[in-house]
């Protein structure tokens, strides 16, 4: 089967800055794929290249087998992009904007039923005739998602879609996106919320300094971090003997990486010997954030 996205040796330079340093990546049809990395890692650059918003310095990209440069019409038909910024056209209401967007893709009144369905599914029905300027941030975010879906693209890219979105809306959005994925749409997601990627994505690429530093199924990436995390809140500083286990600390809270549960007893005995009181304690499974921290070096 043709990959939904194929990226071959893609480089992007801005003067001396190497935003992408030779990316190779294939995302299969029907995948729920996560693109993770700190700010400046090159995630948005990669998405903008897929969307044809910028041009690569070298290398090739295709969407559903269509070259992004030479077969841009077909490639753009196959792709729906939800941009990171809350951009909108202040002259129009939600329904007008969606119909215009469908029109840009060559779709006319025959597509209105689908536009109405998206409006309904994303909870925009009572705002359909509201000017985009007057929508709340959450509603604007929904409208952006709706805009990316008007032409029923098989591949949907969501660039940090839940940034600044409340929990309720986030849940609603993910239910809708999961439904699209079940219906066969390929979903590519960038997010700072690693638990989202862990819950939703079947495969993840981690980027740093314009390169992919890890690419695997979420399950395999999680296996790379064995054992558990022990979160401790202590009455005094962590004893020096336990420092080698420290993953990170915030104030009087410490996160220790354990290779096995039996280590808990050892940790607690050393804390007792140092005459330190444990104010709170929690044993946590290692998650994608730990993998991320291990590889990228920052949460």
């Amino acid at each position, binding site marked *: 089967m043709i990959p939904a996205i194929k990226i071959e040796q893609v480089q992007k330079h801005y003067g001396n800055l190497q935003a992408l340093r030779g990316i190779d990546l294939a995302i299969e049809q029907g995948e729920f794929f996560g693109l993770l990395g700190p700010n400046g890692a090159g995630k948005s650059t990669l998405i903008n290249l897929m969307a044809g*918003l910028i041009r690569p310095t070298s290398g090739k990209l295709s969407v559903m087998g269509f070259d992004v440069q030479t077969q841009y019409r077909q490639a753009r038909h196959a792709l729906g992009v939800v941009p990171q910024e809350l*951009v909108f056209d202040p*002259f129009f209401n939600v329904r007008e904007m969606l119909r215009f967007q469908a029109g*840009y893709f060559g779709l006319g009144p025959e597509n209105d039923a689908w536009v109405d369905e998206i409006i309904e599914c994303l909870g925009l029905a009572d705002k359909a005739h509201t000017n985009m300027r007057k929508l709340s941030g959450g509603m604007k975010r929904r409208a952006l998602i709706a805009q990316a879906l008007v032409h029923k693209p098989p591949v949907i890219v969501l660039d940090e879609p839940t940034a600044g979105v409340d929990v309720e809306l986030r849940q609603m959005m993910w239910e809708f996106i999961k439904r699209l994925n079940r219906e066969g749409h390929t979903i590519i997601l960038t997010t700072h919320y690693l638990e989202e990627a862990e819950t939703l994505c079947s495969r993840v690429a981690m980027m740093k300094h314009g390169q992919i530093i890890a690419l695997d199924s979420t399950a395999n990436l999680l296996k790379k971090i064995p054992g558990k995390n022990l979160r401790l809140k202590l009455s005094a500083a962590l004893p020096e003997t336990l420092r080698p286990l420290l993953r990170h600390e915030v104030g009087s809270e410490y996160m220790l990486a354990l290779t096995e549960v039996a280590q808990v007893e050892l940790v607690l005995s050393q804390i007792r010997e140092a005459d330190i009181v444990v104010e709170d304690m929690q044993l946590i499974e290692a998650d994608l954030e730990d993998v991320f921290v291990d590889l990228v070096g920052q949460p």
Partner: protein
Amino acid sequence: MNLISSEMRGPWTLFKKELLRFWRVSFQTVAAPVMTALLYLLVFSHVLEGRVQVHGVNYTSFLIPGLIMMSVLQNAFANSSSSLIQSKVMGNLVFVLLTPISYLEFFLAFLAAAIARGLVVGLGIYLVVILFIDLPIIHPLLVLVFTILGSALLGAFGIIAGMWADKFDQMAAFQNFIIMPLSFLSGVFYSIHSLPPFWQEVSHLNPFFYIIDGFRYGFFGVSDMSPVVSLSIVALSFFAISWLALHMLKSGYKLRG
């Protein structure tokens, strides 16, 4: 039945959106320029009527075509340039850039909307003026051709300015230091034969002069230059500016990095 094929629907939708964009704020985009032109007319005709005749035409009548065309040109420019700079600054241009619309279709849609605004403003001024002044048109087709070509030239110019400018300040500079002087010094208010020889020569380098002169010929059948020469120069200017705009769009200048 769909009158527009799906291939044409993209640029057609962009054109419709651009039309609606200026029509939604028609007080600003249509009524205001009509009002400004009428104020110019009122003041200049009051001061100079009876004292000046140009090409055997009384001054008020002479002034009207120039004022109409000046408004047509400024508004055609404003339409494409302001739409582009606004959507660049607001970030919503991305919605068009993500679509299969080609650079040529993008150009044609913006150009057609600029022409439409030029025509609406020009017609608006004309309809209000003829309520008060008898203004026959000797060559209506020529009037229409110069209106369309003039708006098209400035619409294309507006696309270039909209792509080039990164902020409203730069756009204002483009408008105030290029478009305004070119339109004011194009013979709107005078015949260039009333200028010293040096400034007559300088005026011949201004493409706006030929648009206004040819347009005026359509009304009175008299002009500073032959209408054929004016039409050729305006058409050539349009093709040159369009070529530049298309070249910039194709390369993705400041639109696609």
